[in-house]
């Protein structure tokens, strides 16, 4: 199947200080598949997504969004197309009503009051916070606040959404919520990208996995292919998802990413 490239990364270099290169020439494209970028701390993941958002500018190379170089757009203009949920919701929440907070972004990128409200209500419903519109975000727990932050980006109706460590401080219920949000976004044609350390979560919802190491791409492929490669993952100081590890140790040839996959396989096998 031919994939439509939404973002194209061409020979992307970046360094904060001269001579100390963080990204050393990245070349790949991102399509509408859900993509997880994994790698050890300091591998350049955060720097990379900051470049995607235009918060940093490449020292060399370019990023094309739907064929257009993003360096021609300001961060605020880019915000219409690419949304990003930051790791810590406290970094963005400043209104004292959940609905106002969620509507801030949509209004800023030029939606009308009615549309912004409509989108915000829908986004809140999607993250399971319907009925919380009038609460003060700081009266909610950290995990709900994170969901508010997620809703505030979804409401902006962007083509691409980047999640920075979405599972931190989330319990089982929260994680399931975020999974269903990501699946829903995917079905609506939004490109979901995440940088994350939670491999089980990646195995559950992400189709494509890109492994970053020392400022370059070590491995890029479907979740199944990437997680099958224990040796390379080790090289990047990463672990396989628990189910994958277990099944491999039990001696199965196939690669299983999560319990459902294994259970289906097992049922079929045993009849």
């Amino acid at each position, binding site marked *: 199947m031919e994939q439509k490239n939404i973002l194209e990364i061409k020979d992307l270099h970046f360094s904060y200080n001269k001579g100390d290169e963080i990204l050393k020439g990245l070349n790949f494209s991102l399509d509408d598949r859900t993509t997880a970028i994994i790698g050890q701390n300091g591998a350049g993941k955060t720097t990379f997504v*900051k470049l995607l*958002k235009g*918060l940093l500018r490449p020292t060399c190379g370019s990023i094309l969004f739907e064929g257009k170089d993003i360096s021609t757009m*300001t*961060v*605020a203009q880019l*915000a*219409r197309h690419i*949304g*990003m949920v*930051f790791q*810590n919701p*406290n*970094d*963005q*929440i*400043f209104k004292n009503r959940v609905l106002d907070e969620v509507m*801030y*972004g949509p209004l*800023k*990128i030029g939606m009308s009051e009615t549309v912004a409200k409509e989108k915000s209500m829908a986004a809140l419903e999607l993250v399971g916070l319907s009925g919380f519109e009038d609460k003060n975000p*700081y009266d909610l727990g950290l995990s709900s606040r994170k969901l508010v932050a997620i809703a*505030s*980006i979804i409401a*902006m109706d962007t083509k691409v959404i980047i999640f920075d460590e979405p599972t931190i401080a989330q319990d089982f219920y929260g994680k399931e919520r975020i999974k269903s949000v990501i699946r829903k976004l995917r079905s609506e044609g939004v490109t979901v990208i995440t940088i994350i350390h939670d491999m089980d979560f990646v195995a559950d919802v992400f189709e494509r996995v890109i492994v970053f190491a020392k400022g370059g791409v070590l491995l890029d492929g479907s979740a199944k292919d990437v997680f099958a490669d224990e040796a390379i993952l080790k090289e990047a100081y990463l672990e396989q998802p628990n189910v994958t590890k277990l099944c491999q140790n039990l001696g199965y040839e196939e690669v299983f990413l999560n319990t459902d996959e294994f259970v289906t396989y097992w049922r079929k096998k045993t009849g």
Partner: protein
Amino acid sequence: MKSISLYEEKGSLLNKLAPESKILYIIIALLLPVIMGSRWVSIGFIAVSFFLLLISKVLRKTVPILSISGFVLLTVVIIQGIFRAGNVTPVFAVGPVSFYKEGLMFAFEIVVNVLNILLSFCVLILTAKPSDIVENFVRKGFSPRFGYVFISVFQIVPQMTETMSTITDAQRSRGMETEGNLLVRIKAFGPLISPVVMSSLINTRERALALEVRGFNARNKKTFLNDEKKCGADKYIQLGMLAMLIAGIVWRVAGWR
């Protein structure tokens, strides 16, 4: 995290000395000229400070400090040189404006004093770690609670700057313009400052809890994680400087002048 302290470990002689020796140096560098009533003493101390900074390899770091104050001093020289009351003896003229000896002498004295103050403080600030200074004070009986307040400034300020830049990024990502004319910047103020304040409040509470858990208010005698910063020469240096101070006082009181 970027440090706001100007200190840098260079392994120099001055790095090894106890902070008290350097503080004592500041005291005598400022007191002796007053006691002895001669600007030559100040000039002497400026030379000594320069030498100390040079051998500590931190002379370059004084350039920004000196250039900012240099600008102010330049205005002092110009204003005093031209307009000081009691200006009678013209020295030179630039076009229609003439500079007078009395004003220039007065300005020169100000410049010497300011340079002396700046450079002697540089000797301390550029070669002693803030936490070492405070720790040595605490060892000498300064309240550890206030000591912590001083040290924590050096940790909290960079942390807040960092939070501030993350917040700016987060809000720009939501389409907020942060660059542009004054109005744009004023509008950006609310969305930027409220998360900073909120997270600082949250951080403060957590920090207080974390400190208390580790016995911050315990009444026992406290021990120190780091060794005291001092070396063998410190005692002699401090004694030497005290001797200089006393000699200066005696010289003035005895009225040899």
